[in-house]
């Protein structure tokens, strides 16, 4: 009975994992396929990687996406943190509930609506002020900031609420003025949340296809836009190679994060042991 059940569980686990990872493994395998037609196996080759690295179009898309993602993540983190701070640390100011609602609204707004409204907004701006004369890096970045700062605000808000106010009050009590409390206590304590907020905004931006498609202009292709437009005319092996590269980068990031977390856990454990050693 026991053996049977565990076999059942093993099978279910295998199926579950297969469901997640077989498509990705296929993708990786096909990226090394010599054949030009994706499902037809033509032997191992690095042909598509070579083509990928030689393609200026792909590199400019990667570079544009990364630039947008970094600028977006930075601004979204700053603005989102300020919004989170206002929500949690400024007491019950007038219109707080409305403000809180407006912060989370972009999270539930359909992307099509956000994209469309931003497009209308940019066109209106252009007519009134002559800016932005062409859509691309700036418009996509602004669009991404508007929705990803909502995610950061929520992350920061949760962290601030969880932290409680004791440490900040203690600092003020010891004579630190509000700005000093912010820089010496609040921000250092917020660092993990700031980092995860930044990474979240970064990923959201790299990932976004819908909103970017609305507010981009001719010649400004982000990576998702490029991939999607190429796929539309059929599966292409060089896209597989690109996707494999992306998977590799993500896997590396996850590994680094896991190592850092493991180290932190070990340090916490050591602290606890040390503290226990002090109890009589």
């Amino acid at each position, binding site marked *: 009975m026991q053996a049977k059940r565990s076999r059942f569980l093993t099978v279910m686990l295998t199926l579950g994992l297969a469901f997640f990872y077989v498509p990705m493994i296929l993708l990786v395998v096909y990226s090394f396929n010599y054949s030009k037609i994706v499902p037809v196996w033509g032997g191992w080759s690095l042909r598509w990687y070579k083509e990928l690295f030689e393609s200026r179009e792909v590199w400019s898309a990667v570079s544009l996406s990364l630039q947008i993602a970094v600028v977006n993540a930075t601004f979204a983190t700053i603005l989102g943190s300020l919004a989170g701070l206002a929500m949690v640390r400024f007491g019950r100011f007038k219109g707080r509930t409305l403000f809180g609602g407006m912060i989370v609204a972009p999270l539930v707004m359909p992307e099509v609506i956000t994209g469309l409204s931003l497009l209308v907004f940019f066109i209106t701006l252009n007519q009134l002020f002559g800016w932005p004369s062409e859509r691309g890096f700036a418009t996509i970045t602004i669009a991404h900031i508007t929705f990803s700062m909502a995610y950061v605000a929520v992350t920061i808000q949760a962290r601030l609420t969880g932290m*409680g106010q*004791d440490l900040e009050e*203690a600092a*003020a009590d*010891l*004579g*630190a*003025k509000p700005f000093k409390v912010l820089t010496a206590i609040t921000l250092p304590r917020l660092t993990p949340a700031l980092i995860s907020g930044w990474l979240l905004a970064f990923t959201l931006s790299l990932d976004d296809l819908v909103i970017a498609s609305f507010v981009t202009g001719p010649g400004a292709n982000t990576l998702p836009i490029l991939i999607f437009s190429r796929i539309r005319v059929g599966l292409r092996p060089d896209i597989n190679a690109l996707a494999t590269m992306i998977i590799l980068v993500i896997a590396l990031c996850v590994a680094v994060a896991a190592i850092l977390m493991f180290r932190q856990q070990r340090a916490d454990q050591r602290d*606890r042991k040390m*503290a226990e050693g002090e109890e009589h």
Partner: protein
Amino acid sequence: MTALDTASDTPWLDPDGQTPLVQIKGVTKKYGDVTAVDNVDLDIYPGELFCLLGGSGCGKSTLLRMLAGFETVNGGSITIDGVDMSEVPAYDRPTNMMFQSYALFPHMSVEKNIAFGLQQDRIPKSEIKDRVHDILALVELQDFKKRKPQQLSGGQRQRVALARALVKEPKLLLLDEPLAALDKKLRKQTQFELANIQEKVGVTFVVVTHDQEEAMSLATRMAVMDAGRFKQIGTPTEIYEFPESRFVADFIGSANIFEGRVTEDVADHVRVKTEVCDVFIDHGESVKMGSKIWVGIRPEKIRLTKADKPAVGENQASGIVEDVGYLGESSIYKVKLSNGQIIDVTAPNQLRPMSRQHGITWDDHVNISWEPSSAMLLNS
């Protein structure tokens, strides 16, 4: 030090002509419709260790937070050392606070935690170093200055928190449940340490606590709070032996309370008729003849004797032992009186029973009695 000097060391016992360090006048704090602190007045004198005692939600912490400047005052005023605090932000007040959670900065070492307050005052580095060193010696943590708070035991963290609050030499140190996070044994030990440190540094302490034993053992004076008001302010002895109301008598320690009517009220004694017996109190109290009143008697002030005949007369009654709680050093007896009321009596177990059984046990007929000075007159 002579007896005369001692008197001037305790200005709170003879406040006439003394200047209080803290003056709280008509202070009120409201959260929406809820009144947390309701029009309270209090003077605290230099060198005091003043305890605010009360159950949760009685307003004691709110009052402390108003002294620290974390909460604004809705009405009334707080003056510390002659300066009105209403416009003074928390970071400019001559107060420091020790938090219940200790609120140690987890990203700083013990040394840096303690130095933080001094750095805000732009004190020269060498002086900071000396003062941190001295305060670490006072709390006996010299060997731990490089550690992070999370690498310390609960008792050590408590001492870091105390050192960090004391190092700025505040005029007033506010302590929010300073011992609540410690285990029982450590708490008892730390109680005395805390009182010793206060005596050594001479800073005025205001301590918030819900633990009456803690308040009694620490305080020079204490205030019992309930529903945002002070029920009584006095020395621990005054509060315990001379409670003014049923609430205080019941909140501090335990008390057997009888309802009665004043039948005699003269300069040197009072007589109250209760259902249990006539109570004779051998000191004058200002009560109204014929008025309804309550008499309280502490369990340890009642004598318990085995008896065949019921007791008749003043300050005594008889009953049956319903229950016995053996605590080792003493026992608690639940005695059911003839009118059905159950009263508590505690008696020290002074003699070691050779038969391994105590003299008074379940279902014994007993008489109880007390001294004329022991009964306390209480208003509602």
